[in-house]
């Protein structure tokens, strides 16, 4: 399993909010078309780490990256100053903690990324929207009300709408930031199924505070603590035979 190609290589990644250092020299490899989970206690820097991949931190003043995240096969450094954050976000999609559909119709929500990229052809947009909604397992539920407001959907449906929105532009990588923390167990199960299915076509990086979820959906897991990467391994190994005491304490609930 460890033999899959490398999609991204993180080396010496550090991150600063002003004078506060939030990430300390992280090194890891993200495998192509696999699900990699980031776990760790609140404040350990897992969301901060995730947001480096699509440069969301560039929206906050006085932030700074160190080291590199190289994306393959092109071998570009995602956090390099010379690389435009908008270029990065066009290739790497993101799904947030709280479902955040725009106050627009279901159709326009999914079409948003295409329109932002200047897509004009109605046929192309309709085709991509339908495909994205099918891939997000939402098509059957919304196909009769594509022009109804996105905000009228249930929480779980809204989150799948946000996944469809991200899929519509064929991203190479999808970032999930605790995507089920605002959802009920049934909606959570559907999102997890979806993430598992997505592995076929896109590299997934998911932050979760729920260890069972990490164990259920991911192929690899990284355990972070206080802004550092404590352990990174195949999920099956990390959860059954952790190499570090801190990891074992956390996954067995003895943390803190």
């Amino acid at each position, binding site marked *: 399993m460890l033999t899959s190609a490398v999609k991204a290589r993180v080396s010496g990644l550090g991150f600063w909010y002003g004078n506060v250092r939030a990430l300390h020299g992280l090194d890891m490899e993200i495998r192509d078309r696999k699900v990699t989970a980031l776990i760790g206690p609140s404040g350990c820097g897992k969301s901060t780490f995730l947001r480096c991949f699509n440069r969301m931190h560039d929206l906050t003043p006085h932030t700074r990256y160190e080291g590199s995240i190289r994306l393959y096969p092109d071998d570009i450094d995602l956090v390099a100053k010379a690389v*435009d954050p*908008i270029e990065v976000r066009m290739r790497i999609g993101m799904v947030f903690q709280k479902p955040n559909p725009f106050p627009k119709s279901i159709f326009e929500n999914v079409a948003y990324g295409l329109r*932002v*990229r200047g*897509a004009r052809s109605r046929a192309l947009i309709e085709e991509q929207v339908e495909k994205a909604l099918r891939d997000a397992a939402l098509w059957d539920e919304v196909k009769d009300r594509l022009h109804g407001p996105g905000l009228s959907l249930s929480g779980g449906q809204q989150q799948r709408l946000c996944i469809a929105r991200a899929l519509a532009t064929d991203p190479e990588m999808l970032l999930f930031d605790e995507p089920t923390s605002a959802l009920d167990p049934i909606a959570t199960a559907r999102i997890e199924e979806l993430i598992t299915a997505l592995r076929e076509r896109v590299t997934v990086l998911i932050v979760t505070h729920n260890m069972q979820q990490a164990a259920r959906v991911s192929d690899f897991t990284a355990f972070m603590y206080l802004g550092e990467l404590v352990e990174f391994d195949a999920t099956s190994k990390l959860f059954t035979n952790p190499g570090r005491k801190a990891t074992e304490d956390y996954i067995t609930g003895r943390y803190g």
Partner: protein
Amino acid sequence: MLAASGGVVRRKRFDRLFVVLGMLVLIAALAVLLALFTDLVRQGAARLNPDFLTSFASRRPAQAGILAAWVGTSLIMLVTACVAVPVGVAAAIHLEEYAPKNWLTAIIEINVTNLAGVPSIIYGLLALGLFVYEFGLGQSILAAGLTLALLILPIVIVATREALRAVPRTIREAAYALGATRWEVTAHHVLPYSMGGVLTGMIIGLSRAIGETAPIITIGALSFIAFLPTPPFTGEFPFLSFAWLGDPFTAMPIQMFNWVSRPDPAFRVNAAAAGAILLGMTLLMNGLAIWLRHRLRKTFQW
């Protein structure tokens, strides 16, 4: 295939264009303020001297001054502040600390919001009908002060409510837990802690009142007044006199309006000089309020 057609360079060019456009509009707006003030000072320079402050209005532009106007404005502001601040603060305390959630409260709230949007000249008509004729106050300092007090009441109420609301609930709960009554909680804690906000609202309200022209023209302020109101202090017991409340008056904005609307360009100079002083006063008051608000934000970190 889609990612490649994103046109990032072109899209970012629009971003930069918009930033330039935004800055241009901002600079234009602020340039107006600067141009206005410098023009007033330059045009009025010839009259901006101590004599201008100590002379009455006159038919000869070069001798005319604003003595009656600034004395009138000061006395009107005194009346306005004495009425608007206690009533406004009390109304805000009622709405924020006491009022139950019922139809009466809703009606008061709607009225405060609505009054803030009523044009100032309507207040002038109200004052003309109510204060000048119904109450028989005539065209007096008292009538003008009350009119402007009603005009700025919504400003004082809204600012005070905001200040009261900024005091955290935990402070109130702490006082109640020690056995304080509702009035004690308000008078000992909530109101003192929000004094800065109340003061800011008062200054902003008065700076609005000081420049208001339409409502006091409407009640019929004379613009040619060559005498001062009765002095408030007398030589004999009880040493204080309120006769000035009933005296006719003129005020800074009225005097300026009077000079602006004369065809003789020499009066334009007087208008500019009066305008420079009036604008200087309002800007100073607003600056003071802004500074106060800024300081409060730094001192109170709930």
